[in-house]
């Protein structure tokens, strides 16, 4: 058994850097971006559960194998599967194209964070900026902007999520979550 601290270190250091390759592999088999993200999280979940028994020696093939098995399960559940699709599943040989930009330098990281911040909707951006740049907490931010505690907390949660995804993902832009759209349908 691997304890959770070790598991977390392995996940952050070895698994997360594969995210772009993993998404690229998954995207070859399902078109909808949302499905890819669902599958990605499912792969992570299974990988962590399997690694708890023992950490794999080589993470990349391990994670891709987990992904392939999930895709095969999914294909079996589907009614119609093209031969092309099944044949392709066996090919785990994904060229390691992103190796070069995998390790973000401190400077790249700052640039990327600034670009991500820039793409947030204005109000969300200001709340995240006050937290991350100025170091204000929610109460101080609410006082400064003259809005409620709850509003700040909600905007900060959305911003954290969008910005964290931006830092990890291969996508060049922030995905607009339903809650980030300026006009939002309220659910009762």
């Amino acid at each position, binding site marked *: 058994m691997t304890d959770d601290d070790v*598991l977390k270190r392995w996940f952050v250091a070895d698994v997360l850097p594969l995210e772009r390759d993993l998404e690229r592999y998954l995207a070859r088999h399902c078109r909808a971006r949302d499905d890819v993200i669902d599958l990605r999280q499912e792969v992570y979940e299974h990988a962590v559960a399997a690694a708890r028994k023992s950490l794999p020696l080589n993470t990349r093939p391990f994670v891709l194998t987990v992904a392939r098995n999930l895709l095969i399960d999914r294909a079996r559940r589907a009614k119609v599967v093209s031969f092309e699709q099944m044949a392709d599943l066996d090919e785990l040989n994904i060229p390691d194209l992103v190796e070069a930009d995998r390790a973000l330098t401190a400077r790249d990281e*700052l640039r990327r964070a600034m670009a991500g911040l820039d793409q947030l909707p204005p109000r969300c951006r200001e709340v995240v900026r006050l937290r991350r740049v100025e170091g204000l907490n929610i109460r101080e931010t609410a006082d400064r902007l003259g809005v409620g505690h709850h509003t700040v907390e909600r905007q900060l949660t959305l911003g954290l999520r969008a910005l964290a995804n931006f830092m990890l993902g*291969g996508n060049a832009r922030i995905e607009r979550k339903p809650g980030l759209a300026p006009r939002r349908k309220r659910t009762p």
Partner: protein
Amino acid sequence: MTRRNDIEARAAAWLVRRDQPEWGAADDEALKGWLAESDAHKVALWRLEAGWDATARLAATRSVAVERPSLNRLLESRALQALAASLVLICLFAAAVVPEWVRRDQPQPLRRFATTVGEHRAVRLPDGSAVTLNTASTMRAAVDSGRRAVWLDRGEAYFDVAHDARHPFVIHAGDRVVTVLGTRFSVRRDGGMVTVAVVEGRVRVEDAAKGERGRAAVLTAGNVAISRGTSMLLTDRSSARAEAALSWRRGMLTFDRTTLEEAAAEFNRYNRRQIRIADPQAAQIRIGGTFDATDIDAFARLMRAGFGLAVREEADAITINS
């Protein structure tokens, strides 16, 4: 909202609250309980935490003019004055490096990428497309938010083009222009000859000198187009064959009933040490198989063992004879 979406929102909410001064032991227990519920919760939180931690450097962009009053008192100590000074330096640094990157709408200058003999190079373009340059190749790229154009000046490259229907990706290879929307394929130049092999998607190949009779061909997966001057040969191979033509990306060469002469020429693209076929009879022997592109000694040994050919090894060449 999907289950995953829901979990990610919860994880983000935990991370926001954990940073606040009100966070207490009871909250800590509650978070532990939530994490213990499932691995899906754990990976969602670990993942967002890592992404959020990566934004910590934003603090370096804090401008000194908007200090908080509580900091003024702290700043009276000498050590902190030094720290403040370095913070100013970091801000100046950030101000210097950031604008060129943030202004993404400005046209990018032409960037040049090259490989030497035997070298491979993976290049990621600003639009998300990935290019692998094969041995002894040169490419220039002008890719930004407005246009996507590259010039393959010599050699060979494999393209994995990010999909963007509004901005076609255009490759200029000698007298051919290859236009794509998003797909995987390779382009190779040998002097005046241009070969395009498509693995996935659709690609249009046309004469650079448009007009006349509009010589354009649309290639789909498995197609290989070989063109020279005004003629173009379109062959329909299986996808596996098109993939085999791309085995160089793994450092391998794949031959199928290829003459020894052609195989030697192929090896010679990857190595300074050249293979010479000394007599016409040996040159016409046909071989098949997959070989390490840079291990010409192994290839020569196989020729000796398999075909009883005489192999003479020198410092800069290997000569093969009947």
